[in-house]
């Protein structure tokens, strides 16, 4: 086993080595701000404003203040009349608060729409050659007319008209339109990892017969477009919980402010309606109320930019709460291609004999491992005379590897059975053929396993010839990633078909918390169910049809784009780059989304403290609350106006943070809470004190009293 040198990880957003990859092209940002500014006014429509409880209260307050500006005596003369100029200024700041909140939402939506347009460009309409199921002929139809179950034929140069499954043929496909990866990928019928194609990609060679698997507008890209555009965005559980909290806070403050006038009248300190509205708006959590939807939309946008298609916002958010990651060893923890390193003969056989049988067993094996065995035989041609290799394979048939038999091989025409596979599986095969197990087999098997390699036993009929040492290479930086995940409280479980000794060595080397050796597809579901019974949320990746039940069972199932249609249907995310390691990145995106929402909520609520000290002394200076004017604000009116101006400008000031997300750090929940309370809680208390004082000084300098 080899470990490559580590590379820096989690610099800000999860990137690692993928920062060199070309992601989905960044959408055009030109004109985005202008369109968002226009949309901010459109969103003043009460039918739209009513969807956001906190901001709708501000909207109602703005209307009341505008009325009081037009008719200063409307709600009472004398002390209740705070003057047209003051009323007008408060109205303007409230209007600005609404516009800034609308702008934040429109900007996030605009970015999502631009992202959707970039995705939509991959879905160019094209002509498809639809095969007639009865007559066998074909006719040209528009790709938008294709329905699930239709069978089409595509040839070199054609664009694949819709998502589908290859039912016949082998071809190389350019998927750069959706993955950004320019190297073509091989697609073939009956393959578990190369059997599905995505609409919008282009065939470079040969021809494929494809069964369409999605009706128009129901493909993966369509679902993602709807999601990033916000058209089908339903509130996630966290957003719902936060909406309730914000509504409760707003209700409490509304009742508190509504009960003030009788109290103030009793104390002979009548309060103008406009001042009460200002107090209400200052107290309710307008900052998070204005930015909440922008944070959610921006989170979806980030996932899309990472070349991951999520079928719901709920899935992205669930990533942030994941407790356990179930990871396949091959491709995720180790580099996908294990390579044959050495032949280790047993039972008195020679290396030449072992190489011959291994070559025979790999004759039909087109997997990287199988090809590497043939290559090793060729490299050792000086010790393995080619003339003696089993070339009499005419009429022979290949036996494919399966997770159940855990071996593959060749049935030669002369009746010889060449097999290679897991040592226990080969032992069983040999016993079934009446053979005996060489005494030194277990020692050799353990020798390879202790090196962290995968031992493949090789036999012909009832005779075991030896073991092939397949070398695993652990991905660079993976240990550090698991260390960080552990610090975040996420447990990692490695699943592998390897024997327990090999699995244990790799698990220790990679730093995973637990491993399941000799795992079958059923084990995956059992592990997920076991964790879920403990109240944990589980994420996993998969690409094969046999992964589909486990992907459906997991809270977050990420299917590889190169995987089968069954796996993609079962999962709630599809990784267009087919990179299993990305699961770790997706978890960080989900966590970042939740942290951003939490941090801005903390900041918003903490903001209120300074506003109490600005507005309450101004309202009730006459009854002895004057000493609470800690900031030494110039006058009651300038104090209220300063608090309102700060309340408005803090929203656009936080828009970049809401859209970009709070910087993610791989810390435990307690450490994150402590850090965010310090940064956004304490910062949320101090910033408005400084801000309101500065605005008050500016207002006083302008001569407003």
């Amino acid at each position: 086993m080899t470990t490559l040198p580590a590379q820096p990880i989690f610099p800000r957003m999860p990137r690692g080595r993928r920062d060199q990859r070309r992601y989905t092209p960044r959408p055009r940002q030109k004109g985005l701000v202008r369109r968002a500014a226009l949309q901010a006014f459109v969103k003043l429509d009460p039918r739209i404003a009513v969807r956001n409880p906190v901001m709708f209260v501000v909207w109602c307050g703005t209307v009341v203040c505008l009325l009081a500006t037009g008719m200063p005596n409307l709600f009472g003369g004398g002390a209740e009349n705070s003057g047209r100029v003051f009323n007008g200024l408060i109205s303007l700041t409230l209007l600005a608060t609404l516009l800034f909140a609308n702008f934040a939402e429109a900007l996030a939506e605009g970015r999502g729409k631009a992202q959707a347009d970039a995705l939509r460009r991959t879905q160019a309409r094209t002509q498809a050659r639809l095969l007639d199921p009865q007559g066998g002929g074909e006719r040209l139809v528009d790709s938008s007319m294709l329905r699930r179950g239709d069978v089409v034929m595509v040839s070199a140069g054609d664009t694949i008209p819709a998502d589908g499954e290859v039912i016949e043929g082998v071809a190389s496909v350019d998927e750069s339109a959706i993955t950004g990866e320019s190297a073509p990928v091989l697609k073939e019928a009956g393959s578990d990892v190369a059997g599905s194609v995505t609409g919008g990609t282009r065939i470079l060679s040969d021809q494929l017969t494809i069964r369409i698997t999605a009706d128009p507008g129901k493909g993966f890209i369509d679902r993602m477009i709807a999601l990033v555009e916000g058209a089908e965005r339903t509130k996630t559980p966290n957003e719902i919980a936060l909406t309730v909290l914000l509504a409760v806070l707003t209700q409490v403050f509304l009742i508190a402010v509504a009960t003030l006038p009788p109290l103030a009248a009793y104390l002979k300190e009548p309060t103008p309606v406009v001042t009460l509205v200002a107090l209400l708006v200052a107290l309710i959590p307008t900052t998070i109320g204005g930015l909440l939807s922008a944070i959610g939309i921006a989170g979806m946008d980030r996932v899309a930019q990472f070349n991951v298609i999520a079928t719901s916002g709920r899935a992205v958010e669930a990533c942030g709460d994941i407790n356990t990651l179930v990871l396949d060893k091959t491709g995720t923890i180790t580099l996908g291609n294990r390579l044959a390193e050495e032949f280790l003969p047993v039972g008195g056989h020679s290396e030449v004999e072992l190489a011959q049988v291994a070559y025979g067993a790999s004759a039909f094996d087109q997997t990287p491992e199988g090809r590497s065995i043939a290559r090793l035989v060729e490299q050792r041609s000086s010790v393995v005379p080619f003339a003696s290799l089993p070339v009499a394979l005419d009429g022979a048939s290949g036996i494919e590897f399966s997770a159940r038999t855990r071996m593959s091989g060749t049935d030669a025409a002369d009746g010889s059975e060449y097999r290679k596979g897991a040592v226990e599986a080969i032992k069983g095969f040999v016993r079934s053929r009446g053979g005996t197990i060489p005494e030194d087999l277990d020692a050799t098997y353990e020798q390879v396993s202790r090196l962290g390699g995968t031992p493949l036993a090789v036999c012909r009929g009832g005779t075991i010839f030896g073991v092939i040492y397949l070398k695993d290479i652990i991905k660079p930086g993976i240990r550090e990633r698991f260390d960080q995940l552990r610090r975040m409280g996420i447990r990692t479980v490695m699943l592998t078909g390897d024997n327990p000794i090999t699995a244990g060595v790799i698990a220790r080397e990679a730093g995973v918390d637990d491993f399941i050796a000799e795992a079958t597809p059923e084990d995956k579901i059992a592990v997920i169910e076991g964790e879920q019974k403990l109240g944990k949320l589980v994420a996993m990746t998969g690409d094969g049809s046999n992964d589909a039940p486990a992907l459906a069972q997991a809270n977050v199932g990420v299917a590889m784009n190169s995987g089968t249609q069954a796996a993609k249907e079962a999962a709630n995310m599809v990784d267009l780059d087919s990179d299993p390691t990305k699961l770790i990145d997706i978890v960080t995106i989900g966590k970042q989304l939740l942290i951003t929402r939490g941090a801005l909520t903390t900041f918003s609520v903490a903001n209120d403290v300074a506003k109490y000290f600005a507005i309450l002394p101004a309202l009730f200076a006459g009854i002895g609350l004057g000493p609470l004017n800690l900031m030494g604000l110039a006058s009651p009116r300038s104090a209220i106006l300063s608090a309102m101006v700060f309340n408005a400008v803090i929203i656009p000031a936080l828009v970049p943070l809401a859209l970009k997300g709070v910087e993610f750090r791989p810390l435990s929940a307690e450490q994150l809470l402590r850090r965010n309370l310090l940064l956004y809680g304490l910062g949320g208390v101090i910033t408005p004190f400084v801000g309101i004082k500065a605005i008050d000084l500016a207002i006083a300098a302008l001569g407003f009293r």
Partner: protein
Amino acid sequence: MTRLQRPTFWLPLLLAAGTVLIAPLLPGQDPPLQRHALALLISLTVALSGYLFTAMVRPERF
């Protein structure tokens, strides 16, 4: 019939009814306009409170 069930239909009626009921109870507000404006404001506050209550029990609608 469905139109009658919409808040846009019955809410203004309720606000008007509330205003008419509350206005005579407000002391010391001589001009009728001020008295009714304040009564409308109180009715609006109650309606806003009801709206926030709806947001609490049916948050997925918002």
